[in-house]
């Protein structure tokens, strides 16, 4: 049996959980095992239909009021108990903050290593894994051979497919959670008051790096004139104190997937590029024709961004595109 940890909200299973289910189903098929899932919270049973549609036979709905609010260690404990009770050869989770945190607790309790950021599994005597290092800059082939193989699936790397199967059978699971497991529990959720289009949702992202020399005014003006556009930056610009870290795109910043990405005065370091690999198109503006970003872009303008950006804004206005 292969057990998959899934997360959901009012709209159903979340994307990364569906990706995890797709990879888990592949593992289950290779191992000739059944696919089962575990979900927490009061609405767990409601996702049985969708889970079944992605190949899940049995959904273990954790039944414990104390666990309705997220509690990482207790969730880890419950996953371990469920895995032991149903006898599983693998536990697979989504590569989200909660997925990784829950399985890391579970792995530690089981005294096995968890493999994170996995994109592919070949099942044999051990699991031959493909996983991401350096935020996707490098690929690692490795071998996982624990008594129970625990792994998380890298976010947005697996394309989801459904089976059209019937709803999963729901089985209530009552874990035996200890007092200490609830030491850390979600206390509150705060809404942020960010204005404008969030980076992750923008159709156009214009960003500036060290090449701006600290002057982002032209890039800001350009973004204001394009609908659904957001401003981003490289880490160099954040380190200089020119932009807040929220604007940073890359391995340790935001991941974006716009229709077009327009990096200005950014050299194209690998840690920056993994943040924008979801972009459909890249148009680079840089004074250096040898900059790595030119190799990685679809179009390039070799010129000073401080002159090109205002010219683009003027041209948009001349053609009646200004907001």
């Amino acid at each position, binding site marked *: 049996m292969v057990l998959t940890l899934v997360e959901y909200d009012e709209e159903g299973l979340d994307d990364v959980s569906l990706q995890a289910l797709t990879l888990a189903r592949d593992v289950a098929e290779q191992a000739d095992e059944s696919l089962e899932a575990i979900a927490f919270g009061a609405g767990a049973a409601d996702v049985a239909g969708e889970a079944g549609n992605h190949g899940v036979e049995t959904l273990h709905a954790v039944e414990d009021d104390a666990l309705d609010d997220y509690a990482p260690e207790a969730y880890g404990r419950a996953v371990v108990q469920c895995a032991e009770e149903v006898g599983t050869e693998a536990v697979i989770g989504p590569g989200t903050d909660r997925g990784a945190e829950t399985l890391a607790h579970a792995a530690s309790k089981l005294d096995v290593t968890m493999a994170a950021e996995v994109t592919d599994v070949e099942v044999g005597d051990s699991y031959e894994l493909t996983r991401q*290092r350096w935020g996707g800059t490098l690929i690692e082939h490795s071998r996982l051979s624990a008594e129970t193989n625990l792994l998380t699936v890298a976010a947005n790397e697996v394309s989801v497919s459904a089976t059209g199967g019937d709803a999963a059978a729901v089985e209530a699971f009552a874990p035996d959670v200890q007092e200490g497991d609830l030491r850390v529990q979600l206390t509150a959720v705060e809404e942020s008051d960010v204005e404008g289009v969030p980076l992750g949702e923008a159709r156009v992202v214009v960003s500036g790096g060290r090449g701006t020399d600290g002057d982002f005014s032209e890039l800001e003006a350009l973004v204001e004139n394009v609908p659904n556009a957001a401003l981003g930056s490289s880490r160099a610009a954040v380190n200089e104190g020119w932009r807040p870290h929220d604007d940073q795109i890359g391995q340790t910043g935001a991941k974006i997937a716009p229709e077009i990405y327009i990096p200005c005065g950014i050299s194209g370091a690998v840690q920056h590029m993994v943040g924008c690999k979801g972009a459909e198109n890249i148009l680079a503006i840089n004074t250096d024709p040898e900059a790595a970003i030119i190799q990685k872009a679809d179009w390039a303008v070799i010129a000073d961004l401080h002159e090109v950006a205002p010219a683009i804004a003027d041209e948009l206005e001349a053609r009646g595109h200004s907001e």
Partner: protein
Amino acid sequence: MEILTAIKRVPETGAKVSLTDDKLDIDTTSLGFTFSPHEECAVEEGVQLVEEHGGNVTVLTLGEEDATEQLRSAIAMGADDGMLLDGGDDEWGPAATATAVAEAVEASDTDFDLLLFGNESADAANHQVGVRVAEELGLPCVTGIKDLDVGEGVATAKREIPGGSEVYEVDLPAVVTVKEGLNEPRYPSMRAKMQARKASVEQTEPEPREDDLELVELEVPETDDSPAEIIGESPEAAEEVVDVLEELEVV
């Protein structure tokens, strides 16, 4: 307050990554070394907390002897003591690393109030060393933190989610794993760097335990490196740029 921060030495790659012939490592012949931006924030947070509450920041790394260079960078940022767990040239897996770190914490004369880790290491991104150390030491743990507020025996920690943040309260001592954006790490002064060179670093040699995850081979992902179409070399290219935007129907 007694604070421990854990950092990992990694190569500072630029626009292109090359591998060694056996494909087990990054070819670092012409590269410098650093530690993760997340861990930089962990060190900065420790230093700021000690500036506010008094106490000491100990910075620890497990790795080859050259990793003392990263300990000294952290000391230049304001950490007080360095601790090298000499693990030799080979990378240790996350279970082995965590056990060695937990044992070093237990063996230490210091009772740490706060143990700060990166949310994930820059290279391996195993997402677990901090959690495992917490489990081994029986401490509570919060991960992925971008906002930390430490009060009397308790910390309030926030983790970013789309459109807001989750709030966790945790009693000290605790393990907190952090992400870049938590604070703005300082640039050490020349003088601090010089002094850090002289700081003493405690060194031990832990025994590795087995890890279930074994590296077979690394691979550089294929990227489309066909050069871009140069659509202009002056501000007049704005016309071509807007043509592209119109074609993509984003304006």
